[in-house]
């Protein structure tokens, strides 16, 4: 008989302490041994995790009103500008913003030692952060300037809100040009000297539910060491499943927008990073529980690195020009082995997102669920699935 479970049944099992939870890594040998149907009957939840740099991240704050009142029109936190074109004492800080006086790439490759992601990390670490704001002054908000120090606990609200996280799959970056390049995919040596990749493969959340059967608006998740929620599809969300010429299939294109109270997050799971020659950003720890409602969901949740493919893209010429035509496809098992074979050559590989940390996130989420404190939420609405989104457009330049 086909396995069918409801979320309510799974939550009842969580509350009664009988729930069976495995990480996305642990479920693979189980399914190999017992088959999808048996495993789907036995397992209620599969937990996933990823710990990678996610540039489309940020946080918004309410600083509380000043005396006299002030409508802050420009705001800096530790010298990094936050967008203040909102109400009087609200601002949004983006992860990749850098200080006004950063040397950037004037001596290439620039170091980008500090930026928005670092400010978010410092706030979560409960370090004091300088707040500077200026205003033009109005009758109701006369004050024009403030220079003070805040901590996250001084703020009324501090909310992590990331418009695009957890990219389902990502390019493997190589460099076909004849000089070393410095990218968000790390340092890439000339003539395909190395290949960098950046997902946790078989642990990666959206690779384990490619049709978005369970992950939707309102899904409760592990975010930055605390609890968060999926609020929307991420920007550029365009999930696809493409059969590959040499067998296998490419699952890619899905993304999530997520939100959560920054005050309950942990500094080890939200870390500011500096990519040489590229910029500053934020590494986000994110994990999603997948309720095993039926066999199809279990089938996808238990796919392994051997079956998950990533496209190899040249970041020397193709990517910057906007022609990301893949050079080929490789599996995560090949990537993790240390070398891939490309155009008849052995190319050494290295990850950029931390697999050990991804594994830790899946394990923490598993513990939270088993302890009864983390119930699964029924999505209020599902996100567009494969072939339900029109292909992404690029920006067309027109006469103004």
């Amino acid at each position, binding site marked *: 008989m086909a396995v069918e479970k409801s979320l309510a049944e799974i939550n009842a099992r969580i509350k009664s302490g009988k729930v069976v939870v495995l990480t996305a890594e642990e479920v693979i040998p189980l399914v190999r041994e017992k088959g999808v149907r048996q495993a789907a009957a036995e397992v209620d939840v599969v937990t996933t995790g990823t710990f990678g740099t996610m540039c489309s991240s940020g946080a918004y704050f309410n600083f509380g009103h000043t005396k006299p009142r002030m409508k802050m029109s420009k705001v800096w936190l530790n010298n990094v500008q936050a967008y203040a074109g909102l109400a009087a004492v609200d601002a949004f800080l983006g992860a990749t913003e850098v200080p006004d006086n950063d040397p950037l790439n004037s001596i290439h490759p620039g170091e980008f030692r500090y930026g928005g992601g670092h400010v978010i990390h410092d706030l979560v670490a409960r370090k004091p952060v300088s707040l500077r704001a200026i205003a033009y002054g109005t009758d109701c908000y006369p004050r024009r300037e403030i220079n003070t120090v805040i901590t996250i606990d001084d703020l009324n609200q501090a909310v992590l809100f990331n418009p695009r996280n957890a990219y389902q799959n990502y390019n493997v970056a190589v460099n076909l040009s004849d000089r070393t390049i410095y990218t968000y995919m790390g340092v890439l040596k000339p003539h395909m000297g190395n290949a960098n990749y950046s997902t946790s493969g078989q642990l990666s959340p959206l690779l384990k539910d490619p049709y978005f059967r369970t992950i939707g608006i309102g899904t409760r998740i592990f975010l930055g060491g605390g609890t968060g929620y999926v609020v929307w599809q991420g920007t550029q969300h365009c999930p696809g499943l493409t059969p590959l010429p040499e067998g296998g299939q490419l699952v890619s294109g899905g993304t999530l927008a997520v939100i959560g109270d920054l005050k309950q997050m942990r500094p080890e799971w939200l870390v500011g990073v500096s990519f040489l020659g590229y910029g500053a950003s934020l*590494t986000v720890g994110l994990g999603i529980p997948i309720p095993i409602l039926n066999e199809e969901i279990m089938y996808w949740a238990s796919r392994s690195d051997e079956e998950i493919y990533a496209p190899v893209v040249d970041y020397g010429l193709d990517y910057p020009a906007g022609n990301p035509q893949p050079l080929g496809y490789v599996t995560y098992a090949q990537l993790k082995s*240390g070398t891939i074979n490309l155009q008849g050559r052995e190319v*050494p590989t290295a*990850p*950029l997102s*931390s*697999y*050990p*940390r991804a594994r830790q996130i899946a394990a923490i989420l598993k513990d939270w669920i088993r302890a009864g404190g983390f119930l699964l939420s029924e999505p209020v609405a599902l996100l567009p699935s494969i072939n339900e989104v029109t292909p992404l457009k690029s920006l067309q330049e027109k006469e103004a």
Partner: protein
Amino acid sequence: MSPKRVVLRFMAETADKPIIYQLIRNYDLVVNILKAHINPHKEGMMVLEIQGEPEQYARGLEYLRSLGVTIQPLSQDVHRNETICSHCGACISVCPSGALYLERPDMTVNFDEDKCVVCLMCVRACPYKAMEVRF
């Protein structure tokens, strides 16, 4: 001239002066700050990698000494801050000696200090700034 590495130590009065800017502007030196630390008393320590014309290099150092900065050539080693390292792997492909390598199948990043040739590539490339120069 190949890049030279030096340790600068300076007092509170100098901490406020744009000495790096002057080195770059007035002596045409390429200056890379490998490490910088200013303590609460505003006494500072900075490790620089400097490259440029030998004459300009000498004049630049003379300028620093005139400000009361003490200068020492660098004898150093590289150390990994274990609490900061996320085991991401971004340093693996830049490390020329194999001192940084992945332990399979766990995919943790190991650091073998004995193999390190102190090229400092990882210090620049580590997004988390976990690789530190030590003296």
